[in-house]
């Protein structure tokens, strides 16, 4: 670590990991309600648990990106972060807003559009924190060395902030509401977030493989190009059945196929760069996560997305457990693993220790990844059965759900296993380092 302000990433990563735990705990609770429907039904109803589950996810992922930006921008721009005070203020506002949202949900105070349930004043706080961040990192980048990594990262961040403004537009016409709601939801996760993802991966590849920056950055352009060319019109696969014109069925189907390409390109990119370098980076756990991330993103976002995004298929599968299956593996593969990879890479440096508890960290990788894969399979089976019984046979929703009990129990099992994996990760990255060899700057090996 060359710049002292890179340390700003540390509190961001801790806050992110704590909210990750909140998210997973809420997930296990929600999974329990699926298996045992009367559980908590009057003290903490399902809709509240689910709001905490999804909102905590979005907030901790963003905290991870913010922290990653504070960590990588000084190294890329070759200068310290413009204002550490603003970064602390931003963290304080953002975490306060997140906790206020959780308390507010528990008290039953919320707005009602999915994922955008935060009361108006909390949404405004989130925007304020986001603007502080953009100001801080943009100033740093403008005054320093310009690299493709920081340019793409900033494009992704500015785009995310810009699209979030549609969260404030809620027309009375439901179809219009839904159309612009997807501007936030789709263009985040299948558009600008992919820019953030690709630039963070690019930084990790540059640092860990030692392959020439020029080569990595050229492919970074290709990947983010593929992401936006396919992702923008790919919004069409959400515009099939919500009162939007029929031509979206063509556009959405075609561009959904293309949306697989950036993820496939990321797999090739990461593996090729690691293969080409032949260098053995000592942080093996970070390498494992960095390779696992594009692979699971390819399956979760790419393959499971394509599975149900042709309009002819989606006509039957829309709004079933198939969507839940896809959502879980896509978020895990693309964005959860991305952050966990980055934390695994950066935390040893931030804590001034050698890469430590690598074995435990790698076990947590396999436990979480296997649990999420199993969860996705069970939900996929549940979804296929539900699609047939409900959309083809025409049975009632509640009647079908009882037949899916076995799958929901297996999903709960997977959820508990995932929680175990997440706790292992937490211990491996933030746990005691007393037995580790502390690294002073002049003793540091190839790990940078």
């Amino acid at each position, binding site marked *: 670590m060359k710049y002292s302000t890179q340390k700003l990433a540390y509190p961001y990563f801790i806050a992110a990991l704590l909210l990750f735990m909140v998210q997973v705990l809420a997930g296990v609770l929600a999974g329990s*309600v699926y298996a045992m*429907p*009367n559980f908590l039904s*009057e003290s903490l*109803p*399902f*809709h*509240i648990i*689910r709001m905490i589950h999804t909102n905590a996810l979005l907030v901790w992922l963003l905290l991870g990106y913010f922290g990653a930006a504070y960590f990588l921008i000084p190294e890329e721009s070759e200068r310290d972060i413009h204002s550490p005070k603003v970064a602390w203020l931003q963290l304080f506002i953002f975490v306060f807003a997140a906790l206020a949202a959780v308390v507010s949900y528990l008290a039953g105070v*919320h*707005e*009602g*559009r*999915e994922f955008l*349930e935060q009361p108006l004043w909390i949404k405004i706080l989130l925007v304020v924190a986001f603007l502080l961040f953009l100001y801080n990192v943009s100033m740093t980048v403008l005054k320093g060395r310009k690299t*493709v990594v920081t340019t793409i990262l900033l494009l992704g961040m500015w785009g995310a902030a810009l699209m979030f403004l549609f969260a404030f537009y*809620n027309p*009375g*016409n*439901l*179809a*219009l*509401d*839904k*159309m612009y709601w997807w501007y936030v939801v789709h263009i985040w996760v299948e558009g600008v977030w992919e820019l953030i993802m690709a630039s963070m991966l690019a930084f990790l590849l540059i640092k860990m493989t030692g392959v020439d920056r020029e*080569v990595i950055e*050229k492919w970074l*352009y*290709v990947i*983010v*190009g593929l992401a*936006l*060319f396919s992702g*923008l*019109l790919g*919004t069409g696969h959400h*515009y*099939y*059945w*919500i*009162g*939007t*014109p*029929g031509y*979206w069925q063509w*556009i959405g189907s075609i561009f959904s196929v293309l949306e697989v390409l950036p993820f496939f390109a990321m797999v090739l990119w990461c593996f090729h760069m690691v293969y080409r370098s032949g260098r053995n980076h000592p942080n093996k756990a970070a390498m494992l996560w960095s390779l696992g991330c594009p692979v699971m993103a390819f399956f979760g976002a790419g393959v499971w997305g394509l599975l149900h995004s042709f309009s002819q298929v989606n*006509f*039957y599968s*829309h*709004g*079933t*457990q198939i*969507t*839940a299956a896809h959502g879980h593996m896509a978020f895990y593969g693309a964005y959860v693993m991305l952050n966990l990879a980055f934390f695994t890479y950066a935390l040893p440096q931030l804590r001034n220790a050698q890469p430590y508890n690598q074995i435990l960290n790698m076990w947590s990788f396999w436990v979480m990844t296997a649990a999420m894969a199993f969860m996705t399979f069970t939900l996929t089976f549940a979804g296929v059965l539900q699609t047939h019984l*409900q*959309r*083809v046979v*025409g049975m009632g*929703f509640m009647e079908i759900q*009882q037949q899916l009990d076995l799958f929901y129990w297996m999903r709960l099992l997977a959820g508990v296993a995932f929680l175990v994996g997440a706790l292992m990760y937490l211990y491996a990255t933030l746990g005691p380092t007393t037995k580790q060899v502390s690294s002073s700057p002049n003793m540091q090996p190839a790990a940078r």
Partner: protein
Amino acid sequence: MSERLTKSAARNIFYGGTAFFIVLFIALSVHTHLYIVNTSTDETTLTESVTRGKHVWERNACINCHSLLGEGAYFAPELGNVWVRYGGRDHAEGARMGLKAWMRAQPTRVPGRRQMPQFNLSEQELDDLIDFFEWTSRIDTQGWPPNTAG
């Protein structure tokens, strides 16, 4: 390919292509917006009570259990066509009474069955919410869902 494609060419393709697709997306969005307002939804019957009903729907976060036009939590039934499922197209009063009775009877407390909380909606709120369901059921959704099961 890696030899022929230079970094500056990759950059130009990225910026040029992105600009092209943004413009295309905005153009299609404008058309879609107009199509929704003029063709697929009935703005003339988008009354005060429908709008109030949408707010009842939002204030109680119904979307975090139910789905509406297939989007939501998949934990509870689809409600975009609940008006049709309750026979509202043929017997509006019967459907209205049935929906109110159902929401008032929650939670059922039946063991092993998913529970809907009691939201204590007023008569006015119930009517507004049902007006919202009725209006929603008339959105032209390209024939979705495949059947009344939703």
